[in-house]
């Protein structure tokens, strides 16, 4: 079969997705600017798109792209040097730095790329950037996603994402954010910023906050991939493994949580045979790593441990709810939040009966931050229904339905409201 230009373009897409993060990371170390590094890598990609359909795909396409980007970087340094001769005010120090950079180029690119990737992660998730900018930049630079793919995933117009990325790169340059791995006291805060971005991407895929689909699996896969990369790059950080464990176990249920007609299926109603045992095993292994590193007090590891309780139970009845209650209590102590409290209420209801759960929920109804949160009336409705208070339950389900922005979830909630009428 003849290799068509379309085939070649598809192959280039694949190579780009596999190699781009490493190329950008290696270049960023040299040019000390993530934006410029990405432009150089993009230029190399354009060259590949022009040349490969003619010349065929090289044996080692990643090395080809890296070499092409490297040539462009050297050209850029030379141009800048000429510029410097013309404008001496740019200073000798900078010139010396750049000359050294050119000499060090090969050595630097051959060095262990792992540290460069980790630097790239930390820069992309730098707190000078808004959360939205961090997400877009991370998916773009680390995930190898195109602007269009990111826009589609978050259901926003492509120019919005493009703008966000351009502005993020500009901010990083203006703020002189160093291309380095944070140390000491700064590390913990910066790491949590990275993990937050990854988990946000995962959650947007796992329970889409808006739109017609209950899940967008591609985003979950992107987040998992990022998380797994991170687990290798920062393997001594327990919370990284905690997050990976949480995502692997949550993702193991993807197949079971949507019906064939696209409706959400809640945890206790899922067919556990459809849970992906491969991902569950990976999740347990990651949790084990977190534990061995002494990380069982981390927020992600605790949530993963809760998810693991469900994964371990072969039937809903076999769930160790008392342990889940204890884990939520630990989580509430670490990071008190009304959402955690709401989850604890559900576990309490399962462990000690709906009345006990309702007591916890009723303590939350005045909570201002939960005012527009659809899961509060949804949980309350559930407990009221179990207690036989059907009229009140129906009202709560209807209220929950009016609060969710996800169409599939709204249908489910209205359905449950209707079942209360039958009683």
């Amino acid at each position, binding site marked *: 079969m003849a290799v068509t230009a379309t085939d070649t373009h598809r192959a280039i897409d694949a190579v780009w997705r596999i190699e781009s993060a490493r190329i950008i990371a290696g270049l960023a170390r040299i040019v000390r600017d993530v934006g410029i590094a990405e432009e150089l890598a993009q230029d190399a990609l354009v060259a590949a798109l022009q040349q490969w359909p003619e010349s065929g795909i090289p044996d080692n396409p990643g090395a080809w792209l890296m070499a092409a980007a490297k040539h462009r970087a050297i050209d850029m340094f030379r141009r800048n040097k000429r510029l410097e001769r013309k404008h001496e005010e740019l200073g000798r120090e900078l010139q010396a730095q750049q000359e050294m950079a050119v000499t060090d180029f090969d050595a630097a690119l051959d060095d262990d790329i792992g540290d460069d990737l980790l630097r790239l992660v930390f820069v992309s998730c730098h707190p000078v950037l808004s959360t939205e900018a961090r997400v877009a930049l991370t998916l773009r630079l680390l995930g190898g996603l195109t602007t269009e793919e990111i826009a589609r995933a978050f259901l926003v117009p492509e120019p919005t994402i493009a703008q966000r990325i351009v502005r993020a790169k500009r901010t990083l340059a203006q703020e002189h954010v160093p291309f380095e791995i944070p140390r000491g006291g700064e590390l913990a805060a910066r790491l949590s910023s990275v993990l937050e971005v990854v988990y946000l991407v995962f959650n947007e895929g796992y329970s889409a906050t808006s739109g017609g689909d209950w899940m967008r699996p591609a985003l979950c896969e992107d987040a998992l991939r990022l998380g797994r990369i991170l687990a290798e790059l920062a393997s001594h950080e327990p919370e990284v493994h905690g997050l990976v464990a949480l995502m692997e176990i949550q993702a193991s249920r993807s197949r079971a949580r949507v019906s064939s007609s696209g409706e959400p299926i809640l945890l206790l109603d899922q067919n556990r045979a459809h849970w992906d045992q*491969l991902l569950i095993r990976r999740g347990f292994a990651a949790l084990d790593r977190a534990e061995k590193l002494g990380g069982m007090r981390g927020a992600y590891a605790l949530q993963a441990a809760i998810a693991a309780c469900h994964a371990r139970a072969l039937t809903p009845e076999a769930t160790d709810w008392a342990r889940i209650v204890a884990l939520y209590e630990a989580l509430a102590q670490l990071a008190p939040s009304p959402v955690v409290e709401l989850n604890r209420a559900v576990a309490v209801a399962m462990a000690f009966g709906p009345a006990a759960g309702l007591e916890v929920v009723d303590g939350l109804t005045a909570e201002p931050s939960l005012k527009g949160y659809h899961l509060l009336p949804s949980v309350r409705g559930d407990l009221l229904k179990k207690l036989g208070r059907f009229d009140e339950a129906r009202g709560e389900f209807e209220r929950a339905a009016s609060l969710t922005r996800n169409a599939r979830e709204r249908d489910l909630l209205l359905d449950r409201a209707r079942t209360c009428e039958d009683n």
Partner: protein
Amino acid sequence: MRFMMMVKTAESNGAPPKELMDAMAKLTEDANKTGTMITSGGLAPMSMSTRVRLSRGQITTTDGPFTEAKEVVGGYAVFDLKSKQEAIEGAQRFMELHKKHWPGWEGETEIRQILGPEDFPPKA
């Protein structure tokens, strides 16, 4: 998208040279670092395999080896990838290693997509 890759070759090839084993170990390590490889494994020889077959209403059990099989699956790996092209790219790299470290070796890697929920779109 999830893919299973199966490597098929004649069993008479014997054990792979150490250089290839090392190169494959490195490739596996890299695949782990990029978060794409979910699991992998090697299969015991066909002499240890057994087939349970249903034919014309009869279930029969036959022990290996099976003479008709020229090339048999010797190992597999499961990947989470964005596209089939990415799987092809990975399989090519895997075969390049064989080309480089095991002169004369012949065989193939078959790429099969493992279907997920996204492959069964909700009925409208």
